[in-house]
């Protein structure tokens, strides 16, 4: 699936013009990117959380030469899928009501509903 196919889905399901749908899809990813570029996390309930993590500098090795190199401290983006998404992929109930306080939803009640 590409951005163009997401636009197509919005056109089909919501009835927006392709132009408007494309504009909105563009904006959504643009805003998510800008937010992450500020170092702020983005939480999409029912989908997952995008979190910027700081990695300390460490010694590594060039796997080809075995030579030791220093890897600088850096920031990386991690994606933690929501329980809902994980369950959907495994054809389980979308929300496991017996276990509402999953790791992903602790302290974030809005993620459950």
């Amino acid at each position, binding site marked *: 699936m590409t951005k163009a196919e997401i636009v197509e889905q*919005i056109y089909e399901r919501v009835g927006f013009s392709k132009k408007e749908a494309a504009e909105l899809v563009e904006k*959504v990813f643009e805003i998510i990117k800008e937010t992450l570029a500020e170092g702020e996390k983005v939480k999409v309930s029912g989908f997952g959380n995008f979190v910027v993590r700081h990695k300390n500098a460490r010694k590594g090795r060039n796997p080809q030469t075995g030579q030791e190199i220093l890897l600088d401290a850096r920031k990386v983006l991690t*994606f933690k899928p929501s329980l809902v998404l994980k369950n959907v992929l495994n054809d389980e109930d979308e929300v496991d009501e017996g276990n509402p306080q999953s790791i992903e939803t602790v302290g974030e009640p809005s993620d459950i509903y």
Partner: protein
Amino acid sequence: MTKSGLIEEVARRTPHISKKDTEVVVNTIFESMIESLREGERIEIRGFGSFQVKVREAREGRNPKTGAPVQISAKRTPFFKVGKELKEMVDESPDPDVEKQEAVL
């Protein structure tokens, strides 16, 4: 930022589209992505990243409390690989500590 924050911001930048419509579109974006992943499809958003479903093989695990072996069945798990552009943007993002200090002020 949460999904509702995202909807607010999209609505703010597209004043010609109602907030209600914006909400429907944002939800549809993620719903269609979930359905695509459910079908085992790969999603590629240029400049952002790609999502892919990988299968984790069945394995024998242990109950951490009792130490008893438990059978863990095969699982499908979504993976995200950050795109080059976003990867660079994130690496240059301000430190979280700095951000916290600013938030206090």
